[in-house]
């Protein structure tokens, strides 16, 4: 029987150079998954900028070693940073990763999409079987539960996304609101991208070097303007992102006071990511002007991060609860072939005895009597098996009790079910997630 194993490295264990070395995507990922299928029955590779992880269904330790050799391909440096989890620990890790509890930015939403992408890539090459086909979708459900029952992803956790959050506190919807970028710095570009996702309206770029403004405007789908148009654009924009390399403030308080008069007091959010600052601090005192420099933004990020940490405790409790539930259902599942075989055996015995009894009945017995005898036999079997099977399922789901394999073995020996179990086991392999079925057949 295969066990769930995860072999990997992440931002917790490995420096960026090693993570870069292990990163894989596109065709190379498909090729690696195909090579993994030569050594393991099921495999899924999760490769992001912060982690490389291989999820395996491994019958033994030799399979793990072989799979590790496939992914390392002689990269000896990475070996030192690898971690390996088995069974419950591997499952917990998967649930925590999908729920973004193991992410660099706690609660960030991208990781769930990345795990889904990894699952889809593995499914396409036929690397998802019964084990990963049950565990990974369960991880998606757990992640969704964590997101809906906690506020772990509620507040922005990066400087770029804080700008979007702040704009939301002032304007509500950002749809259609004009945004002005003063300077063409990387951070402002990142923040502008976040704003773009919030479906802001026009995006204007102003930079002392017109060529750089043009380049950035093209990348962001905005329009470039001359620096001389700054005051006019300030009068129109609702959100201004500043990131010039100027040593003196570009937006002085008197300029902004003039602008605010022209705006007739309309709210203005100024996000100043530049160091030295682009906006004169006094401007923050102007009415309906909200000025956030880099320190203020970090202050908000830190507040949010603390909030997320508090929510992470609730999320961990959900993970443990789901883990217990899943393990219980898995333990019960292990007994299904035996239970099925036992029921089949008992029913066939009852049917045989019913037929024999019916043979001894007077020839005058009609069809209804025959049906009644057959039903009686089946009812006796069901009644007899109900209590022991219910107890068995309960015992199997109780982690404090013997492992289901022991119960399974005892039942098979008591009722000599080996032959019947083999037949039922063949049937048991069949119920898998629908999308997985054709892939497994292709592999076979």
């Amino acid at each position: 029987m295969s066990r769930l194993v995860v072999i990997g490295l992440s931002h917790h264990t490995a420096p960026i150079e090693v993570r870069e070395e292990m990163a894989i995507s596109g065709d190379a990922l498909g090729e690696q998954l195909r090579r993994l299928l030569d050594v393991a029955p099921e495999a899924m590779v999760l490769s992001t900028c912060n982690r490389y992880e291989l999820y395996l269904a491994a019958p033994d330790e030799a399979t793990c070693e072989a799979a590790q050799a496939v992914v390392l391909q002689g990269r000896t440096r990475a070996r030192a940073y690898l971690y390996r989890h088995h069974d419950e620990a591997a499952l917990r890790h998967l649930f925590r990763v999908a729920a973004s509890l193991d992410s660099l930015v706690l609660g960030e939403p991208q990781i769930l999409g990345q795990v889904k992408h990894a699952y889809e890539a593995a499914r396409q090459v036929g690397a998802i079987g019964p084990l990963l086909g049950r565990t990974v979708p369960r991880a998606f459900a757990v992640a969704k539960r964590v997101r809906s029952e906690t506020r772990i992803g509620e507040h922005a956790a990066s400087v770029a996304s804080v700008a979007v959050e702040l704009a939301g506190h002032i304007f509500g919807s950002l749809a259609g609101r004009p945004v002005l970028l003063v300077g063409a710095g990387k951070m402002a570009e990142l923040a502008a991208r976040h704003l773009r996702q919030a479906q802001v309206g026009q995006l204007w770029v102003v930079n002392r070097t017109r060529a750089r403004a043009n380049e950035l405007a093209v990348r962001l789908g905005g329009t470039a303007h001359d620096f001389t148009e700054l005051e006019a654009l300030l009068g129109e924009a609702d959100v201004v992102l500043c990131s010039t390399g100027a040593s003196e403030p570009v937006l002085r308080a008197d300029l902004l006071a003039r602008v605010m008069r022209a705006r007739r007091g309309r709210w203005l959010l100024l996000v100043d990511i530049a160091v030295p600052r682009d906006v004169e601090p006094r401007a923050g005192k102007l009415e309906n002007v909200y000025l956030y420099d880099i320190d203020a933004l970090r202050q908000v990020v830190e507040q949010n991060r603390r909030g997320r940490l508090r929510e992470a405790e609730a999320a961990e409790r959900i993970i443990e609860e789901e883990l217990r539930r899943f393990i219980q259902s898995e333990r019960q599942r292990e007994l299904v072939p035996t239970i099925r075989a036992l029921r089949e055996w008992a029913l066939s015995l009852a049917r045989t005895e019913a037929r024999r009894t019916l043979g001894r009945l007077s020839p005058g017995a009609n069809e209804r009597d025959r049906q009644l005898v057959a039903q009686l036999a089946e009812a006796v079997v069901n009644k007899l098996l109900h209590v022991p099977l219910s107890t068995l399922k309960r015992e199997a789901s109780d982690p404090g009790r013997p492992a289901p394999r022991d119960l399974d073995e005892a039942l098979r020996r008591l009722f000599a079910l080996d032959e019947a179990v083999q037949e039922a086991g063949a049937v048991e392999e069949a119920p898998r997630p629908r999308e997985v079925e054709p892939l497994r057949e292709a592999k076979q």
Partner: protein
Amino acid sequence: MPPLFPLTLSLYAAACALYCVAVSQALPPLLYRAARGCLLLALVSQAADIGWLCLHGQPPPTDAREAVFFISWLMVGVYLLATLRTPLPVVAALLLPVSMVLQVAARLAPAGAPEAHSLLRSLHVLSASLGTAILALGAGGSVVYLLLERQLKRHHLSPLGRRGPPLQTLDTLNRRTTLLGFPVFTLALVTGAAFLARQLYEGIPLRSVLARPQYVLALLSWLLFASLLLGRVTAGLRGRRAALLTLCGFGAVLAVLTLYYLRGLTGGGAP
């Protein structure tokens, strides 16, 4: 005392508690609906009480006590109507205690001497009550605006700030309530003035009229709301200043209401 008053007050208290929890932590949508449902039930229950009072000869224009009770009902009704599309639990958490205090104050006060029925008087009380209720919603929104604005300026958002409505939504609420409340309040002032003129004509000494500060306060509140409206239209007045002006205006309205209520306690009539 109206028969459903204890039930009404309990429902208001339950709704208020739910809204307060909603302000301090994220609630599932079901609980928001429960809070709103509770509030709706309370509103219906209080409406039944007002109906009962009318049947027993104590309609809102009877005296200050019933007018105050009516205003407390209107405040909730106006809130529910105004927030059909945009729920503002934080405003509800502010308004409901005020409404409950008004209800209790109304029910604790002794019945005043019934005033002679007059259409002008009824129109005055009804328009003043409706105007007060509408402006109360604007004032509630203004308090929230000032709290959130202060947090945003100081770069420190409390849970209230994080879950509170955007500043622009609150300012829009302020603008709409002023636009709607001001004409109603003006009607109250005009009918009040007409009623007063009739009283003077009927021989009440001018000195006793001038001795009542509520007339000056009512005029002051009207002037404040008029200047707010004018500022909005002509100079783009909005945000913090608009919120402060609304609070000053509503403060004057509340003072007028308190004076009438106190006069009612001492047996004086209204207006």
